[in-house]
Every structure is written in C-alpha cells, then in structure tokens.
C-alpha cells in the first residue's frame, strides 16, 4: 500500500472523523475524493478486502492460454455461484472480483439477478464504462407522465457537475447535439468500424435524421491525462487495468483522495447501522462489524456518505435508527426500499453485413456503438411510456464461426485462420418504471455468513416493460434490415431485473419528505447529515448506463455538504 495511505486496520487510534464514506465503488470513491480535497478528515469503510491498483490485478496481463479453462466457467464455479452463473460475469478471468453467492445469500420472492462486488473499488473495477448524461426528457418524465414523483432537479442544475466529473474521470465520445443525450466534456471519440459507419449512415438516411447510431461514450482514456496512461485497446478492462486506461476508484478517485493525506481506509468493515441521535436529529457515526474478526466497532463523524451500492444502502438504512422508526432510517415516507429499478435487456437482433471483405480493424476496442432513445420523443407516441437505447457493434467473425461447407482437416484450419463475414448486432437497454411495489425488505429468517439478516426481493418487470420489449426486438430487426444487414435474427431472453447491474431507486429524492427519502441534495430528510449518493436516489431509471450520474450527484452533494457544514447547518 502507498506510504501516504492510512489504513485503519483494527480500530487502533482514531475513531473520530469529519466524514465517513460507506463504500468504495464509483460513488464512494468520488465522495472520498471530494470530501478529502475540501479538507475533511475522512474514513472510507469497505466491507471487503483491499485491492491495490495494478499490484492486485493478478490476471490483467494473462492471455487466454494462461487460464486452465481458457476463461470458461467450471462446474465447481457453477455450484458456488448459483446467481452469478445466470449471466456473463461468471468466468475464470475475474472471479475474485465477484461476491461468492454461497456466503452472501438473499431471498428471491421473485427472481432478481444480483451481481455484487465486495472489495475496495467495488464494481468500478468491472463496470461497463458506458457514460451518458440524463436529459430533461428524463428529469421531466415523471411529472409529465403523472407517475411516481417529480425529480426535484432539472438538467441545468446537474449539467455543470456532469462536466466536472467527466473532465476528471475521462470520457471519450462524439458531440452529436442530441437533446435526449446531452453532449459532454469528451476526450476524442473512438473509431467506428467500416460496417458500423455504413450502418450508421443508412439509419440516419432511412429515418430522416430521427434515429442515430453513434460511437459509445466510454470512460476509457483516448488520450493520457495526468497520472494515467491512455487506453491500450487490449479489451481487458474487467480484469483491472495496469495502465489506468479506464476510470475506476483505484485508477482515479482514490489516488486523488490519498494525495490529500486526509483519507483513512478501513477494509473488512461491514457497516451494520448508522448511529442516530434522536435529540439532535442527526447521525453521529456508524457501527462496523469486522468481516474478519466479527468484532464490533464504532466510528463517529460529522457527516456520512452512504455509498454501499443501491440495495446494500437500503439494507444499512433499514437497520439504522429502528428504535425511532421500526423500518429504519429514512422510512418515514414509506418509500425506503421501494421503487427498485434496473434496465431490462437481453432483447435485440443481429445479422450478417455483406461486403467490406477488403476491410478489417486494428486493436481491441473496449467499446461499441450506441443508438440513443427515439421512442416517445419528438412526437412519437407508443402504447407504453419512455424508451430504450441500443448498444452493439459490427465486427468480423473469428474462428468460432461455422464453416458449413468444410468438414475437418487442413482446409478447415486454413479457412478459420482468416476472418469471416462481418456481423452487426444490437441489444436494447430499456427504461424500467419506478413501481412502489417493486421493493426489497429485510428477511428476518435468513442470515449470511456473518449472521446478518439478508434482503428479500419482490421486483419484477411489468406490462409497460413487456410492451417496450416487443418494440425493442421489432425495431432492432427493422433498423438492421433497413441498413442492409442480411439474415437478421431477433432475440429476447431472460426478462428479469438485476442483470442490467444498474440497480436504482430504494431511497428516491424528491421535493416532499412525505413521498421521498432524500431531498434534492441527496440528504436523508430525517437525518440531514447523511447523504446517499449511489444509485439509491434515482427517481426514474432513464434508459442509459447510470454511473456517470452517480459521480455527478456525488460531487454536487459533497460540495453542498461542506458548505452546510461550514454554515453549521448540519
């Protein structure tokens, strides 16, 4: 560990801080950076192990042939990871970054695919890095549609904070001038493949400029920034990047926080509750269960940032101040744990793109194309609310393609050493509405490895999403065919939430403490020195990858927290 880093291992010494940050993922890392840079002595609590940048990325330089199973999952892994096995994350290359399901069970009254990362950096190490801004179509949507509650802020209030975090995190992308997908402070965009450029041009023409296919906006550096090397196009991001080529806590926010000398990190620290003083109506600190020793400790601070990841933040709040509110801190509105959202996906289409046999590409681009939302916008009206975007790509087939006319032997081998046809595929990411009845609660009858009650899930897609999915598949087929793609086949599988790994809701912000858990500054109405800035605050899900928004709201909340602290208001 770096010399300048304080690691508070066994509660020796200091128990009082200016601020405590619960969690070290994308939003927790940002909270720590902002608070320490503003001079606050800050304790970052991480429930899992310490992962040091570069040194603790054991597989980041491995090649396929260095893995006994070439990266594939084994039967033993399938047994140990009954949830993770449901989708792509279960594999041999970064298994240590995912929570062992058998140690951390949860209750599925309805199926919910919960893919977790309990270690320093959280899922910032494995995230998909797609980074998009919400627009006023999103912030105004609930009010216009008359559902749930209104967002308490509008785009112009958060736009400067998007700029602020983009400049630091490093987001590559192209400026497109699309009102539904505001431009940002972009590093140079990545290139499209020849086929992607062709398909993009044809979509633009076919839909008269109402639909767009653009290069993905991704938190990978296309130029170096101080302390970090640019993306090397290895496409090994999810192993941890020894170049710091993509944004993670370890590559970006943590070094900044450490440099202030104001940060203390305590790994193996499961926060079991936020301590609440009912006379002062403020939180006073947290109780921590040491995940290694099962000892309990208390730490105190003036402010607390809760960034445990959306669903675990619900868990912490539900276990806090239960002597005042039986359902936990923030439950007075009746909304804590409710309005769980994710993006629904697994729907799309793909096919063969003819021509371009004399074209190829160089490098492994850890990015794809993006088709921003166009449904229920600009006069379009569907029989469902909101819309969806697509991610995808156009690439040449490799050795795993079927060569129907060839059997076995030298001819097959020689054929497979050359690239095959171009394929073009797109997959939708759909907005999920905030339903009060989509909720998590505490299951008092089931316990995890540490004897703690677990969460129970009652979350499902409903009619609006299922109607949308029909469009998501039909539109994908139609657009690809319109773009000249052949043999287009649609697909639609596993309509379950969780697998988007974009958990949102549970502690929405709002104008009114009677209908929301947080105010517009991410403060818990019932304890204004507690800020919740992971995905919990989201009032609607929009349809794009949300992490950039968590960064922006966290930076904004941290700024507000320090101002309020100095004024003596919290």
């Amino acid at each position, binding site marked *: 560990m770096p010399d300048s880093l304080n690691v508070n291992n066994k509660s020796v010494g200091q128990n009082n801080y200016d601020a405590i940050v619960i969690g070290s993922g994308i939003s927790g890392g940002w909270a720590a950076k902002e608070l320490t840079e503003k001079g606050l002595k800050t304790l970052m609590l991480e429930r899992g192990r310490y992962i040091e940048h570069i040194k603790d990325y054991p597989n980041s330089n491995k090649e396929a042939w260095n893995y006994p199973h070439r990266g594939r999952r084994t039967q033993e892994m399938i047994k140990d990871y009954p949830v993770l096995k449901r989708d792509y994350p279960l594999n041999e290359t970064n298994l240590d970054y995912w929570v062992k399901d058998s140690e951390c069970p949860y209750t599925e009254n309805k199926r919910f695919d919960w893919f977790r990362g309990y270690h320093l950096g959280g899922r910032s190490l494995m995230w998909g890095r797609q980074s998009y801004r919400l627009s006023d179509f999103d912030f105004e949507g609930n009010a216009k549609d008359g559902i749930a509650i209104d967002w308490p802020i509008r785009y112009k209030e958060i736009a400067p904070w998007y700029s602020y975090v983009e400049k630091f995190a490093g987001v590559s992308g192209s400026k497109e001038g699309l009102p539904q997908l505001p431009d940002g402070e972009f590093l140079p965009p990545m290139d499209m493949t020849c086929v992607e450029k062709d398909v993009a041009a044809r979509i633009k023409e076919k839909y008269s400029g109402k639909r767009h296919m653009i290069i993905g906006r991704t938190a990978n550096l296309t130029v170096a920034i101080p302390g970090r090397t640019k993306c090397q196009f290895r496409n090994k991001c999810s192993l941890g990047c020894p170049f710091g080529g993509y944004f993670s806590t370890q590559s970006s926010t943590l070094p900044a926080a450490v440099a202030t000398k104001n940060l203390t990190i305590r790994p193996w620290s499961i926060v079991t509750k936020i301590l609440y003083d009912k006379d002062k109506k403020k939180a006073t600190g947290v109780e921590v269960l040491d995940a290694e020793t099962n000892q309990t400790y208390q730490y105190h601070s003036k402010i607390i940032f809760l960034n445990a990841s959306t669903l675990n933040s619900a868990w912490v709040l539900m276990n806090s101040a239960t002597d005042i509110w039986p359902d936990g801190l923030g439950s007075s509105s009746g909304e804590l744990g409710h309005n769980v959202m994710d993006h629904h996906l697994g729907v799309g289409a793909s096919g063969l793109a003819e021509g371009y046999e004399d074209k190829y590409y160089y490098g492994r681009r850890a990015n794809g194309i993006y088709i921003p939302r166009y449904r229920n916008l600009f006069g379009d009206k569907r029989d469902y609310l909101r819309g969806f975007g697509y*991610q995808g790509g156009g690439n040449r087939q490799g050795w795993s393609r079927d060569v129907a006319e060839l*059997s076995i032997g030298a001819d097959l081998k020689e054929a497979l050493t050359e690239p095959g046809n171009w394929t073009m595929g797109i997959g939708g990411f759909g907005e999920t509405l905030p339903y009060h009845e989509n909720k998590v609660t505490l299951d008092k009858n089931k316990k995890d490895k540490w004897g703690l009650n677990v969460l129970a899930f009652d979350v499902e897609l409903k009619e609006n999403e299922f109607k949308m999915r029909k469009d998501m598949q039909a539109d994908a087929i139609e657009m690809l065919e319109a773009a000249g793609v052949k043999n287009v086949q649609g697909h639609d599988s596993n309509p379950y939430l969780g697998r988007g790994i974009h958990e949102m809701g549970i502690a929405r912000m709002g104008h009114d403490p009677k209908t929301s858990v947080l105010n517009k500054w991410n403060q818990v109405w019932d304890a204004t020195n507690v800020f919740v800035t992971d995905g919990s605050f989201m009032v609607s899900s929009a349809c794009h990858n949300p992490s950039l928004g968590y960064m922006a709201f966290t930076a904004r909340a941290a700024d507000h927290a320090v101002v309020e602290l100095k004024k003596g208001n919290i």
Partner: protein
Amino acid sequence: MNRRDALSRVALILGGTIVGAEAFLSGCKTGDKKLGESLNLSPDDISFLDEVGDTILPTTASSPGAKDTHIGDFMKTIVNDCYEDKDQKIFLAGMQKLDNASKAKYNKSFLEADTNQRHDLLVALDKEQKDYMDKKKPEDPTHYFRMMKELTLWGYFTSEIGATKALRYVAIPGHYEGCVPYKKGDKAWAT
C-alpha cells in the same frame, strides 16, 4: 468476458457453432472398454485425443497442428472440470465409439490407421454429427464428435500457438483503427 463481448457473442451464434457451449447431453457406455474408461484419462487416452485433434486441425505450411498445443490434455481438463456428468459420459463413450468406427471401417484402431484413413474417418463422423445435430430436438444429447471438434477448435485457437501462429495476436495494440485494408490471406485476429 465483459458485457460488450457477451452482447457481440450473439452475433457468433448466427454461424451455428457455439464452441464449448454449456449445453450437451447423455449417453450409454459401449461394451469393449479401454478408451475413456474414467475421467482419469490415461496417457494412452490423451495420445488418442491428441491424434483426433491433430486430424481435425493438422500441421499445415503456415502453422503447427493441434497435437503441438497438447490438445488431448486440454480436452481432458475441460471435460473433467467444465462438462456436466451426462456430457462427460457421452464424451468418454464417444472415444470408444470413434475407435470402434475405425475398427469397423479399416479393421484397425484409430491409432493404427494411417493419416489418410484417419482423415476420411473423421470426415464421415463429422457428416454424421452435422446430420444428427441439424435434426435433433434441443433436449436430445449432443453428438460426441461435435464435442471433440468444438474442443479442438476452441483449445487450438486459444492456445499460444493457435493465437500467435495460426492467427494474429498483439498483446498491447496501443491504439485502435476501425477501418484498415485487408487482403485475402491476412490472418484473423485471435480475439
């Protein structure tokens, strides 16, 4: 694998082959024995699989064959660790079936058959598996030779020899260009 790869894998399914896919099936054991009697495959079993693999992907002017990548060991590892029980049984029984097919056709074991005979036999078995796989119901078992072929392709092209000699691989590309010239004969990228 990240989600983008998972999404783009959908495109590969178009081609029909999903190499090493999770779903495979159940079978019966033939009388005779020896080959593939247990998961603890013997050195002879490994040699046998090496030769099967090398017949599927032989040494050519431009690159070594599957045997040079220890394809037999690879198949053993994957079948032992990644296959479900019912698929393991099919694979193990399939080794004996393949040998029996050689005996029926040439009156020689597969290892005794010459290179051309081995090639012709596996061409016939490949046709058999394709015909069967095209017609089978989803719940029907996978053909053993399909497994052997998929394991050979997967193991070979993800080996160091396969990726760097049969295909092209640059560990650290350093930059990305979306549209570069390609001429027939240029090798495909390994990933």
